[in-house]
């Protein structure tokens, strides 16, 4: 699924490691998310959106 995680993360100037810690996942999961190779659970999508100070519908392109 396409998303704006990398774009927003860069804008907020936070690393993948920091985002992973905030979302409670491993860094590799953030890498896969950014590449659109992994569809997250609703909870993870919510946690990532929260960490990037946005909402799920703005973060993921459905």
């Amino acid at each position, binding site marked *: 699924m396409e998303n704006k995680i990398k774009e927003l993360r860069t804008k907020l100037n936070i690393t993948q490691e920091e985002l992973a810690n905030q979302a409670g996942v491993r860094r590799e999961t953030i890498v896969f998310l950014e590449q659109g190779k*992994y569809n997250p659970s609703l909870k993870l999508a919510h946690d990532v959106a929260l960490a990037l100070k946005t909402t799920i519908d703005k973060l993921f392109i459905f």
Partner: protein
Amino acid sequence: MLINSNNKTMTLKQFKIVKLAVVFLLAVVFSQAIIFKNYLIPIIVLIICYLVLFYLRGRVKEIIADERDYLTGGKSALLAIQIYSWVAVIAMFILYANRDLNPAYEPVAMTLAYSTCILMLLYAIIFRYYNKYKLNDKKLIYTILVLVLFIVLAIFSARLFSGEDNWICKNGEWIKHGQPSFAAPSVECK
């Protein structure tokens, strides 16, 4: 030290080093157990190692596995079960069909058949549990796993140590006791 003494925590790297050391230790203990024919010590060591790793895992504050790992693990486990079941069943039929060529094929075929049945039974029980109940009740999962393991071990021990349907060494000869489904041991009877 592998555990940080100030806050009693462990990094993921330290935990992985310990896990590797435990694997080496188990390999040494198992090989020595086979050489000295002592099978109680490896079981005790295995339980101790499991408990130590379980305790240390709680000391790691970093994320060891997340939802993607569980998803990948689940898919891999299912595929591994399917591959093992197919291979075991085909091998079982081939060995059982050729049991006249070598009597040792029959117990191997039976072991494969029973192990496949137990694996599928366990999978069905765990799948049913996950499908019906909540996914995060770890205490109940561990209780069910321990119970199933205990039942399997109890059946296996009862079958193995019952002395029924076995070969008994008497006056330098292997004598049938009951109806053993396998050939007489190849080792010398003293």
